[in-house]
Each structure stands twice: as C-alpha cells, then as structure tokens.
C-alpha cells in the first residue's frame, strides 16, 4: 500500500495519482477490516506504466463512522462500475455518483444485504425485493427491444435493453451478473493452495491468466522466487491460452454475419489447439498447471515437439483465415466502421486488451509490467487506431503472429534449460499484494490479502471483461441493431469473469 488516507480525501488523492488519465484506474474495491478492529476500507489501484508498478491508495473508514465517501466517477469515469459494486457488496455509498443503481444484486435480494461484509456468512440464504430499473430512452416513435437473459445460442446469461429509433440503436443498457457465484467470498479463510482450485475455474477462457495473477500475488506475500524454467513454462502456457482464444474469437466473429467457411475453419483450428492443451495439462483449459511457487508439471521434450508441429499447422490455418477475411468484400463491408470506440473513450473507461489496442490505446500488461519472461522477449503491443470491428479483428490476427513467434522462442528456451527445478517452496505469512497478467481478453488483476495464519482475508479479482463491458454499450450507439451480434462478438466479453 502506497497511500493511506481518510475517505473524505479519497477524491483529491485519487485525482492526484490519476494525473488526468496518465495513470489509468486498474481497479477499485472494498474490504471489511472490522475483524481486525478497524472499519471498512476502499482500495484504488492505479497503473504506473513508467515504473511498471501499481500505486495503491487506501481509504480507511472509521469503525462505526459514516459509510459514505465522495464519488470519483466525475473525475475518473472508469470508477463508475466499481463504485456501484462497492455499494452492493459493502454498503459504502459514493456521494455524487451519477447512477447508483444496483449492479451485481438483482431484484430478488433484500435491500440491506451486503454479502462481502464479514458479518454475512458464506452460505447465507436470503430472499427479498429491490428495484432494478433498466435505463431506456423515451420519445415519440422510440421503442424498446429486450434481449435475454436466456439467449437462442448456448451462451451465458445477460439481459440487454435496446432503445431503438427504427433499426438504429440509440442506447443500450446491459444487466449482467445473473450468475454471480460469490467466489471472492468463498475463498475467504482458505489457504492460497486451497483457493487455487476455485481461482482457476473463474472462467474457461482465462484460467492461466487468473491463476498466474493470483500466484504472483501469493508469491509476493511469501517472498518466494519462481524458478526460471517455471517462468518459461508459465509464459508459454499464457501464450498458448492467447492463441487458443484468439483463434476461437476469429472463428466466432464471422458467425455474426453468416460467413460459413470461416466459421468452420476457425472452429477446426480451435479444436486442434484445445486438444494440444489437453495433451499438455490433461484438460482442455490448461487447468492444474500453475501453482504458487512455480508449475506443477513439466513440459517434456515430446510435448515440445508436438507443440511445435501443432502451432505450425495452426499458423498456416490462421493465414488462410486472414486471407478469407481479406478477400471477402462483403465481409469487409460489414466489419469496417461498425461499432467504433474512439481512443478518448477507451482511455476514459480504462479499457484493456484487444478492445483498447484496437482503439489506438496501447495498453498491454505484457509490456506495461515486467512479469514472466516477457522482458526478455522484446514485446511490443500491437495497435490499430480505427476502433471498429475490423480493427479488433486485425489486432487479433497481428497478436497471433507475435504469439507464434514468442512461442517459438520460449520452446527454444525450454530446450536449453532441461532438468531445472519447477517449483519453489512457499511459506505464507500475513500481508497483501497484487498480481497482474495479460489474459487473451486483456489485463487480469488480482489483489490478495492474507491474515497472520496465511489464510485469505480478501481476494479481489478484476478480469479483463470488467472494464470493457461498459465500452460495448458505447460502441453500439448509432449502429443498426442487426449489427449488434457482430459488434458483440468482436469484443468477445466474458460473463463468468464478472460473475466471480
């Protein structure tokens, strides 16, 4: 923790660190320290790219004192969702917030229920009623289109409310968090090793990113040094996860416009990659590989060769896919100038990942932070400036070729450090730390606080989809509603990541 202040001075302190957007807001979350004799606290984390560090500002509330603080949202738009979540989870009110509707807890929860307070048991059963109003535009000839939470495809639940003027989308409000699992609460009181199994199941698309961020935090608290071979394997797995998801996303985007051959090729390549993952980890989602201190399993010489040959195959397939996209004029017509997010919007919302980089905002944890083997790989973020569906598609294609190159180098490094140790011993003590890694969808941030016995007191998870969801609702404005599936697929946001 870099700054400890009172809630009243949070706004001033945050604005100072934020420096008009030079240091974007990574995350903001609450914590209940009443068990330690203190009150509630709010943590604000800002990225300091020039120092490759994160600045943590902590506002500590007096025990039994007022539960409100000045809202940051007007100065730092990215804080909007965090402040709503803190209100839902801890009952701390951001005074002056423009939109303090509930975010996580829907109509069936009682009014004064704050699940992340320590006084609420993890298996508490509640039932009640509260208001959850959707935001809609009113006017003559305007109408609403409700979509979801149950969709025609096999996807996760989310409710979208479109305010329409004919085919044009005027406004979109998304109601998410339908299947919030309370994982942050469930891990409290567990050791990091026990919690790991839950953490790597937060989301199917970024299990490596989630475990890696979590382990970074745990290792920082324990002061453990990860062996070099383990770091190489982690970096390789992370790139494999990126390749698998980027290829899957590329195959998914043409589904928004019924471009069938590209869908088929994309799903074939993704299947090939998932089978490779199964060969490495014993499961298709690369679970069970990363543990605090290092990795659990080695990547043998045989596997190295298999990875080589599969990636060569897939790289060729990706080239075919990219050519298909390039040569299909009708497809190009659909993706260009559709769903634009401008650079200013991307920065204001502190967007991450592909969405940010396609809008000319070069945000990538692999270069913004020194972790894993990335500093040795001479990595540069790949950006496009248009911010439309086409840009997000091209960023994925560009990043894939960078990932193929990095994977090659990493495999070579692995061959050169045979037989080195895989895992260091980890002894936990009390403390708090953050971890960050770049998931396929963007930066993945974990904050971990352990009590004196080395058990989890607070875990906060901010996956990449969290800051990008609000950007989707802005990207669609002015486009026509039949383009929504395409725009949505170009972001490929995750529901499970925010339903943690």
């Amino acid at each position, binding site marked *: 923790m870099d700054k400890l202040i009172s809630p009243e001075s949070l706004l001033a302190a945050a604005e100072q660190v934020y420096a008009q957007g030079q240091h974007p807001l990574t995350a903001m979350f609450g914590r209940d320290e009443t068990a330690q004799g203190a009150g509630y606290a709010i943590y604000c984390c800002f990225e300091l790219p020039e120092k490759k560090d994160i600045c943590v500002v902590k506002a500590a509330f007096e025990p039994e004192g007022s539960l409100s603080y000045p809202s940051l949202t007007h100065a730092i738009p990215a804080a909007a969702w965090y402040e709503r979540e803190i209100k839902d989870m801890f009952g701390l009110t951001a005074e002056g917030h423009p939109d303090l509707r509930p975010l996580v807890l829907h109509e069936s929860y009682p009014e004064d229920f704050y699940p992340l307070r320590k006084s609420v048991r993890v298996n508490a059963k509640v039932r009640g009623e509260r208001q959850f109003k959707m935001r809609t535009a009113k006017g003559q000839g305007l109408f609403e*289109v409700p979509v979801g939470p149950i969709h025609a495809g096999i996807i996760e639940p989310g409710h979208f409310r479109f305010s329409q003027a004919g085919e044009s989308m005027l406004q979109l409000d998304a109601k998410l968090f339908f299947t919030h699992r309370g994982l942050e609460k469930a891990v409290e009181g567990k050791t990091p090793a026990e919690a790991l199994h839950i953490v790597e199941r937060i989301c199917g698309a970024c299990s490596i990113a989630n475990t890696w961020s979590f382990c970074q935090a745990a290792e920082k608290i324990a002061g453990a040094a990860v062996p070099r071979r383990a770091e190489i394997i982690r970096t390789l797995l992370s790139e494999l996860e990126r390749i698998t998801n980027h290829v899957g996303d590329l195959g998914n985007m043409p589904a*928004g416009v019924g*471009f069938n*051959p590209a869908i088929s090729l994309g799903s*074939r390549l993704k299947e090939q990659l998932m089978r490779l993952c199964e060969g490495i980890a014993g499961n298709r989602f690369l679970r069970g590989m990363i543990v605090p201190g290092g990795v659990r399993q080695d990547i043998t010489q045989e596997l190295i060769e298999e990875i080589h040959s599969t990636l060569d195959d897939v790289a060729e397939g990706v080239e075919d896919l990219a050519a298909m996209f390039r040569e299909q004029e009708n497809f190009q017509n*659909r993706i260009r100038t559709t769903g634009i997010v401008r650079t200013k919007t991307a920065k204001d919302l502190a967007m991450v990942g592909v969405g940010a980089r396609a809008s000319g905002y070069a945000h990538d944890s692999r270069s913004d932070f020194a972790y894993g083997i990335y500093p040795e790989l001479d990595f540069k973020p790949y950006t496009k400036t248009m911010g439309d569906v086409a840009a997000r598609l091209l960023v994925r294609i560009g990043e894939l070729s960078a990932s193929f190159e990095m994977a090659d180098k990493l495999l070579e490094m692995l061959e050169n450090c045979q037989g080195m140790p895989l895992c260091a011993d980890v002894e936990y003590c009390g403390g708090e730390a953050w971890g960050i890694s770049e998931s396929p969808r963007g930066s993945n941030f974990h904050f971990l606080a352990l009590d004196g016995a080395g058990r989890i007191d607070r875990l906060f998870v901010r996956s990449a989809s969290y800051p990008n969801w609000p950007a989707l609702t802005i990207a669609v404005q002015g486009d026509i509603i*039949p383009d*929504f*599936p395409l725009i949505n697929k170009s972001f490929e946001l995750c529901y499970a990541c925010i339903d943690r």
Partner: protein
Amino acid sequence: MGYILEGLALNIVQALVLLAFAPLLAGIISKVKARLQKRQGASVLQEYFDLRKWWRKPVILTPYTSSIFILAPIVYFMTSFLAAAMVPGFLAGQLTISDAFVFVYILALGRFFMSLSSMDAATAFGGMGGAREIYISVLVEPAVMLAILINSLRYHTTTLSGMVIDYDGAYFTVSAALACVAFFLVILAENCRLPVDNPDTHLELTMIHEGMTLEYSGPLLALIHLGSMLKMMVFLTLFGALYLPLSVPLAVKILCCAVLIGVVEILNNKMRLFKVRVYMGAAIVLLLLAIIAE
C-alpha cells in the same frame, strides 16, 4: 366442362408433387452447404423429420394473440400451394388459369398475412422481422414485375404458361441472359437466403423471415416452414421454365439451381440490412437492360 375438371385436377396434382419434393429440395441445399464446409451435414431428408416433429407437437399461443395469428400460417401455406398449382410445370394439358399478375399478388397476399401475424404477438423480434420483410418485399416486387414484363413483351401474353421458354436452341439472346441472372438474384431475396437473410441463424437481432416465425410452434410452425419450402420450389420451377434457356428436363434444372444456391450461400455472408436496396437495385437495373434489349 369435363376438360376443365381434368385440367384442374392436373394443376392440383402438380402442386402436390411440388409439395412432396419441396422439403427434399431444402434438404439438398443444406447438404450442399454442409459438404462445402467439410461437414457431414444432416440427411437430405431432415426437413421431413422436422416437419413430422412439429406436426406432433402442441401449438402454444400467447394470450395476446388474435385470430390472425392462427389464420396467417394457413393463408401463407395456401398461397404457396396455389402458386404451385399455377406455375407452368411438368404436366401438359393444365388449365391456363395462371395469369402472371394473379400469381405475383397471390404470393404477396401470403407475405402480407405473415407480416400481420409477426406484429400480432407484440414481441420486438417479430415486429422487427415483419418490418424488414416488408422493406425487402417493397424492393423485390418491382423486380419480379419487370422480370415478368420481359417475357410478356416477348410472347404477347400475361399467362405464365404462355411465357415458357421455347427450347429450340434459337433462344440465346442478351435479354434472356440478363433476365436469367436478375431473376436468380430475386430468388435469393424472395426466399430469404444469403446474402439478404440468413436461413440458419440463431441471432434474433438480425433475423428477417425467422424473426416472424419465432412465436410459432407445433403444426402452425410446420405449415409456415412447408409454405416457405414450397415457395422456394415454385420459384425454382418458374425460373427453370421461364428464364433458364437450357433444353434439359425441368427437374434437372431445379436440382442444378439448388446446388447453385448452396454454393452462392457458402461464398457469401449476410450483407448490411440497408445494403439490400443496392443489391435489389442491381437486379432491377439488369432487368431494365433486358427490357431494352428485348
């Protein structure tokens, strides 16, 4: 009197034959698409299985619907069936009740009822589908009329059976070639195929024809699907008889067209909704050129 009844019977027999093979045609198009994607694909008989499935299921109605909702699928199916009886087809000695204008507006009647029913259940998807269907039909109608006008000018008649292409080989004019290409574009738009509509999407927000059928279930859904498949069959029959200047049996022509539609659908993706007018504009310009050439 006797020959009228006999002729009428022939018309009905033809409609029944087309009806019987319509699901097979749809199955063949799906199969071609699947194979071109290197997928195994469902059996070409799948549409028959689906129809049987829907036929056995109960109809579920929302309490907000009126009688239009039940009437529309029946009218839609009947109009397709009537069109199938009128189209110049396989059997000689049919009655020449097949006036081209009656034919076009019988099909329009079916579309009109479907658009009405799409708004009846007051769901957003249905209304959007209906609005888009009308938007597209406004563009398709002049194209179909122009296409008919070409043959009408050539043969000095407005009955469909009088317009059938003569296969003597002396018939390869610029006008016929242009009309052939243009009418194929019209078929794709009229039957909700790519690149205008996506027949196998699950994305409610982009649906046109499928959007209108979302609220239907059971036998009513089966009627709508059968009606659309029959309409496709009717259009391909008409295309084969009037616009495809090849001297091969009609069934072969239809089969070739089905394969061609599968290929075109694989080579294309759905266009932006408001681009449809450019697409239909192209068809109309081709037809105008054909009329000038005629």
